């Protein structure tokens, strides 16, 4: 069976600084996967390569059998591979409703925009309350919701979420975890980057530990190591 997303031996970096040194991950049909690992070891860089924002120097990326290694970001979105960035201000001077309306930009998204918008407002009632508010005046949690909402408006066939709960209060974090679970339950395959491995294990089939720009370890969710062992992996005590 061919993989839905297949990343092979990917190398990339910024200027002369290499960040990814041969990353290979795959996501089979109907699967969701999680990525975790220390900050600054290439998780976000990997996502930027997959969505076409950053060119890779070596390696291939295939989505649903089509090579997208050198495809431009807008065409990748048009194929249904959508990346929700960490909650930054998307378009500071645009209102919530306007941003969501604009996000249904590619043809496959326009067809479903009315239903998706309803779904996004149902998933994040806070966004519905703040329709007219400018994005730059939103709180961190609301920005994260808007970022995910925009990605959903693109009508994704595969959705990448980059640390949806980063820097949020426990209450908001729970809200976003619940929302992520609802998106997964809707049948949209996910690639989730998170530090909270327990949360990842509830939603995904497999985890990859990304460290030093490579995949250090692949973990099947039904055969997951316990918490203490994961802490060990993070701090490298295991192989030291």
């Amino acid at each position, binding site marked *: 069976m061919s993989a839905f997303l297949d990343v092979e031996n990917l190398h990339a970096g910024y200027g002369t600084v290499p960040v990814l040194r041969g990353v290979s991950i795959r996501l089979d049909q109907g699967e969701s996967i999680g990525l975790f690992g220390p900050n600054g070891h290439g998780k976000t860089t990997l996502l930027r390569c997959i969505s076409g924002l950053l060119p890779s120097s070596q390696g291939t990326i295939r989505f649903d059998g089509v090579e997208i290694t050198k495809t431009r*970001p807008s065409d990748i979105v048009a194929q249904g591979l959508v990346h929700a960035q960490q909650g930054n201000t998307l378009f500071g001077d*645009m209102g919530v409703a306007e941003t969501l309306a604009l996000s249904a930009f590619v043809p496959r998204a326009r067809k479903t925009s009315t239903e998706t918008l309803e779904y996004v407002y149902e998933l994040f009632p806070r966004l519905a309350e703040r329709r007219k508010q400018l994005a730059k005046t939103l709180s961190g949690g609301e920005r994260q919701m808007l970022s995910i909402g925009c990605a959903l408006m693109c009508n994704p066939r595969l959705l990448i979420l980059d640390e949806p709960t980063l820097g949020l209060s426990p209450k908001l974090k729970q809200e976003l975890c619940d929302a992520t679970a609802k998106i997964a339950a809707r049948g949209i395959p996910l690639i989730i980057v998170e530090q909270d491995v327990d949360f990842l294990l509830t939603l995904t089939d497999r985890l990859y530990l990304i460290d030093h720009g490579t995949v250090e370890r692949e973990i099947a969710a039904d055969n997951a190591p316990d918490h203490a062992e994961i802490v060990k992996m993070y701090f490298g005590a295991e192989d030291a």
Partner: protein
Amino acid sequence: MMDTVIATLISGLLLGSLYAMMASGLSLVWTTLGVFNFSHGALMMLGAFVAWTVGEGAGLGVWIGSFSGIAAAMVAGVIIEYFLVRPFYGSRNMLLVTVMTTLAAMIIIEKGAQIIWGSRLKQSPRLFEGDISIGGAIISRQEAFIIVLAPLVLFAIWRFATVTATGRSLRAVGQNQDAAALIGINVNRAFSIAFALSAGLAGLTGVLLGSIRFITPSLGAEPLTKAMIVVIFGGLGSMGATAGAAYVIGFLEAFLILWLGLYWTPFILFVVMITVLILRPNGLFGRK
């Protein structure tokens, strides 16, 4: 006395209308790409010359001439974007480099026009002949047409930017290129569209200006400095602020000419601009 005041007000309104159309074109490119297009004035001049050549020289009439002028400016704008601006996206000194390249484009177009059309004064035919009298002041119908047209053009740009998907996508690209790309907006295409529209506005302004003043290769140079004052004065970026500032500068210029004469007016305008920037660094109507 009353006649003079009314005449000056109308003159200010006319100047403001022309500045508003020019400055909104400059501001469109600035907000989308972060590039200040110094060839904007030259594109105006190109529009005026092409309108004259097609309308008067080839005898195809004023309407076809005007549209040809606008189209020629748009084509030139897209060419400038593709060859002189696009290679420098993402470069660390993009703003500075594109100042140089668009200045180069200005010089090429101005000198080119001098070779092609020579320096003999030309004037485009008018869409509307005759004069009308407003409160004792007499202006040509063409000037009245410009005064009426400008707000309509500004309104159309505003509607385009806020209501249409393409217009919104240009604003999105201006605010966050990565995020725009990630919702499926083709950033390069947005740049081309912004440049084409901006150049089209330059062409339109040039065609209109060429019908009320003489067309020379340096037709756009002086209005460009005024439009730059307007864009900076209004606070870079916001459409409404730019339009507002255009009319303020237009009226100010008209009354300064009445009181102090043509000689001191540019000087005072720059003093006013610098003072405003010292007191309000984000421009007269600029928000933080």
